[in-house]
C-alpha cells in the first residue's frame, strides 16, 4: 500500500483523494473481505452518490439505491450484508474511501 495514505483509528481513510481500487482492496482485507465485481458495483455506487450529494447514505437508503441503480433482486439488506457484513453503509463507506457516515460513531 502507498505509504502516504492516512487513516483514522477506526481504519477510515483520511486522505480521501488517494483512494483507488488497490486501496479499497487493502482496506477490505483488514475487514476480512475479498473484493469481487459485486463489491465494486456497490462501491462505485457509493462513490458516485457521495460525489453528487456529499453525504454517505445510511443502510436503508443504500438498499433502495442498490435496488434502483443496480438491480431489483440485489436491493435488499440480506444481499448487502453478505457483501459488507454488520453494517453495509459503514463498511461500504470505509472500503469506498468515504468519510464515516454521520452517527456511525
Amino acid at each position: 500500500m502507498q505509504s502516504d495514505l492516512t487513516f483514522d483509528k477506526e481504519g477510515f481513510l483520511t486522505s480521501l483523494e488517494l483512494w483507488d481500487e488497490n486501496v479499497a482492496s487493502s482496506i477490505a482485507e483488514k475487514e476480512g473481505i475479498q473484493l469481487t465485481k459485486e463489491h465494486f458495483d456497490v462501491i462505485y455506487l457509493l462513490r458516485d452518490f457521495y460525489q453528487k450529494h456529499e453525504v454517505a447514505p445510511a443502510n436503508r437508503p443504500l438498499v433502495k439505491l442498490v435496488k434502483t441503480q443496480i438491480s431489483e433482486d440485489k436491493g435488499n439488506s440480506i444481499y448487502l450484508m453478505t457483501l459488507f457484513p454488520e453494517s453495509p453503509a459503514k463498511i461500504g463507506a470505509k472500503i469506498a474511501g468515504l468519510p464515516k457516515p454521520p452517527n456511525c460513531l
Partner: protein
Amino acid sequence: MTKNILVIQRTAPYGSSLAREGIDYVLTSAAYDQNISLLFLGDGVFQLLGKQDSKGIQLKNQLSALEVLPLYDIENLYLTEEDLAERNLSKEQLGLSVNIISRNDVHTLIAKQDHVMGF
C-alpha cells in the same frame, strides 16, 4: 410506533450552519421509521433554490443534500406561496418539487403533527 414529525427549516442555506444541521437531523430521524415532513418557512425557501454552487465558500451544497430526501422516504416537502412571492421567487426557480401551500394552511399542517421542531 410511527409519529408524524414536522421539521421547520427557517434559515437560508449558508449564512449559518442551522440549515445543514437541521437536514442532518432529518436524515438521522428517517432511519428510525418516523413519518417526517419538512416545511421551508421564511428565508428557509432559499434552501430549495436550483443551481446552487457553494464550492467557492467551501460549504456543502444544501440542495444536493435535500435531493437525497426521497431516498430516505421523505416525500412531504412544503413551502408557502407567500414566502416565495415576498422574496420575488417563482416555483420555476426551485430545484426540487415541493407542495406549495397558502400561509393560511400552515396551521392545518402543524395541527396534523405529533411533534414539531424548528431549525
